[in-house]
């Protein structure tokens, strides 16, 4: 029996050693890592034939829709055909599973080389894992003068230069003119500073109060009654007036109350949640929009129903207005195929009296654990320049390289010929209203803190009769613990 156990133990040890041998080295201190990876890159034979294989992971942000996947595959094919030293391999992971998948890959030492497009939110979840690309910018002679210097600086963090500007996504209100026409309402303004004109000729600032009034009139039940009318059947709504399309709970707060630092403190033990009261008011407004007497926002169950596009409400043609960013132009296939049309309106004025806009910014990042940093940087440089010509329109992203803007809108106009120039210009104007600090800002214990925020959002969306004040207090209390864990 002892012999038997000995053999079994030996087998296990051999298997463990094989696993260790197959695995990549773990993330180390940046300087040591740099040397190690360079050495590894020099020593390692080419992974695929004579070519070095570089894995590109997509899933932490936009890029997983079938239309986008096809374009990305095209870009990969273009890149692979353009040279004979690197083989680029695309890995698409559904958004919902991407964080867990990437975590697991990194943990097992089998992480990809490049990740993106990814915004600040997705990047913060892997804080400490990103490679400082400054040495590779220098050694490759990459010309960063094509970008606004402020945007380059935007990607300098404590981890170093973790990315280069690639895509910006200003926000706007997407609206369906047909629904406005049917209700006899004027369209949202398309120039910042303009007022909204009600059918009786009265003018009002385009703020959340006005949006609410308009949205209620655009929320219609099966009998054709709107949300303000007697006999409106809230259980049989066929369209809603407003949808914060694919926005996080932090975004909802930002849009309503303006950008804000959501925590204070400098080290563990001193962190404290500082979510402003204006966000809390925003959450109460949002909740009232779903479960109040005159609803104008789809509740969680309604939004999740197949009839309402399983959450993609505007695309399903069920929302008169959807507040979201340029990246949403990626995902309007069903909408367009149904023969529907949209235009773009300005973002509303927030509770602080100023336009509370949002601008997302995505880029590609290289993981510290890469075995091929130079090759990965070569791919990154290709993706944000040449590859960007195809990728940016597919992502619905405005280029960070100003010279490419015109080409971007030309592609978008071809996709959506009914969208007017005035509408596209709303996006350009939107760049002047970024959320600083971003609603995707870094928080201590980021993943857990974001998960707690998401739970709060989920609770609001799906619970009738909720005491939002009490739940908000609980959120703050929990965040104070999570930040200092």
């Amino acid at each position, binding site marked *: *029996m002892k*012999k*038997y156990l000995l053999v079994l133990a030996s*087998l*296990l040890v051999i*298997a*463990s050693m094989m*696993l*260790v041998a197959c*695995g*990549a*080295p*773990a*993330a180390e201190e940046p300087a040591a890592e740099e040397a190690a990876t360079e050495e590894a890159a020099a020593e390692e034979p080419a992974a695929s034939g004579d070519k070095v294989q570089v894995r590109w992971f997509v899933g932490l942000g936009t890029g997983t829709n079938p239309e986008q996947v096809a374009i990305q595959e095209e870009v990969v094919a273009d890149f692979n055909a353009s040279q004979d030293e690197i083989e680029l391999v695309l890995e698409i992971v559904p958004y919902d599973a991407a*964080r*867990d998948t990437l*975590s*697991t890959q*990194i*943990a*097992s*030492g089998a992480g990809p080389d490049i990740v993106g497009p990814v915004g600040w939110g997705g990047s913060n979840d*892997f804080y*400490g*894992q990103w490679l400082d690309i400054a040495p590779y910018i220098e050694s490759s002679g990459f010309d960063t003068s094509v970008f606004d210097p402020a945007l380059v600086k935007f990607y300098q963090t404590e981890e170093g230069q973790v990315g280069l500007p690639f895509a910006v996504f200003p926000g706007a209100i997407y609206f369906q003119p047909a629904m406005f026409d049917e209700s006899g309402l004027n369209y949202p303004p398309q120039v910042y500073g303009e007022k909204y004109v009600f059918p009786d000729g009265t003018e009002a600032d385009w703020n959340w109060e006005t949006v609410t009034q308009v949205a209620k009139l655009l929320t219609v039940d099966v009998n054709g009654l709107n949300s303000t009318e007697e006999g409106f059947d809230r*259980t049989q709504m066929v369209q809603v007036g407003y949808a914060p399309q694919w926005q996080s709970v932090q975004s909802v707060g930002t849009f309503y109350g303006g950008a804000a630092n959501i925590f204070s403190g400098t080290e563990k033990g001193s962190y404290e949640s500082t979510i402003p009261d204006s966000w809390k008011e925003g959450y109460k407004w949002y909740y009232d929009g779903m479960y109040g007497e005159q609803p104008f926002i789809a*509740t*969680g*169950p*309604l939004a*999740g*129903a*197949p*009839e*309402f596009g399983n959450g993609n409400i505007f695309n399903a043609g069920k929302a008169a207005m959807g507040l979201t960013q340029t990246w949403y132009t990626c995902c309007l296939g069903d909408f367009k195929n149904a023969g529907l049309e949209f235009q773009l309106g300005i973002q509303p004025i927030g509770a602080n009296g100023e336009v509370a806009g949002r601008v997302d910014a995505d880029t590609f990042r290289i993981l510290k*654990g890469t075995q091929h940093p130079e090759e990965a940087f070569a791919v990154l440089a290709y993706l944000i320049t040449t590859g960007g010509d195809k990728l940016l329109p597919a992502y619905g992203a405005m280029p960070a390289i100003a010279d490419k803007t015109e080409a971007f809108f030309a592609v978008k106009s071809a996709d959506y010929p009914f969208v007017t120039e005035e509408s596209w210009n709303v996006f350009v104007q939107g760049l002047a209203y970024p959320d600083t600090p971003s609603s995707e800002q870094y928080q201590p214990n980021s*993943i*857990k803190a974001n*998960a707690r925020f*998401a*739970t709060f959002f*989920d*609770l609001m969306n*799906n*619970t*009738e009769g909720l005491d939002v004040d009490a739940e908000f207090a609980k959120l703050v209390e929990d965040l104070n613990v999570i930040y200092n864990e």
Partner: protein
Amino acid sequence: MLEELNKTREKFSFAAFRNMKSIAKREMRSGLGFTSLWIIGFLAFTLIPMIATLFFSFIDLSITDGIFSTPKFVGFDNYAQLWKDPQAGVNPQFWFGSETPSSLIITIRFALIALPVGIFAPLLLALLMNNKHLKGQFIFRTLFYLPFIVPFIASVFLWGGMLNTETGWINRFLEFAGVPNENLPGWANDVNWVYPTYVIMGIWGIGNAMLIMLAGLQGVPTELYDAAKVDGANTWSTFWNITFPMISPVIFYNLVLNIVGLFQYFLVPLVVNNGTGRPGGATLFYNLYLYKTFFTFQNMSYGSTLAWFLFIVILIVTIALFGTAKYWVYYAGEVRS
């Protein structure tokens, strides 16, 4: 028991292998060859990960550190954290009085509702299917089994749609039948309805258990029923004194599988309630909390500790269950000392 173990050990020892006849050796090699894929799979995907997680539970390791980073031993710190964690609920002080129930209590509460249904519903159906007066048994058997072959995740989505509080046809039907809007069930969004909702979804897949019960029922010798009839036994007496003892091994088998499955309950709350614990924290089952700790929050060490605690609980419950078997499970031909 010890004697049996010794016999088994001798049978599988290397000495025994050496003493085997060549044909027996060849047969054994073939046997091992055919099972080798399973053995490799078991080693790679079960045994080694189990050993690894035991190791992780004694170190401080985040998933982004990578499993090949230099381990930092923390002794029993993770187990101490487990004891103090109100969400896990290992410590009895968190079992009662807390506003949000702990994951262990949530799991046990749900098991108390789901287990009887998971055992008796297939048994009742199997008894029905085995009734000689039922016409078209084959059709019913097929119909009841059919949902089992639908991928579980697909059926969860299907039920999610049917039980949608806003657009689901079940609530629409109830509304049509005159149930006032304010009295319509909130299903997965209502803390009072969420467990029954999950149980209803579970009933959808009882076809397999029903089939196993039916096989057990059909294996009961008919002469026992004939003898009971001659003795004047009524239906209940026949069931209790003949049917139940004869199929008790099958019931026992289903009971063990159900209990293990309930402790590992995970997929339905993850899909239906997004794994957030909604409503009111009622669906943050132990295994879901484990998954979130390990993967979402990237805390491999504490996640492993949670996993080992779960393993030990399941092991103890299963052993206890086997301990009770001698009192109520009847194996034909078994000699009891």
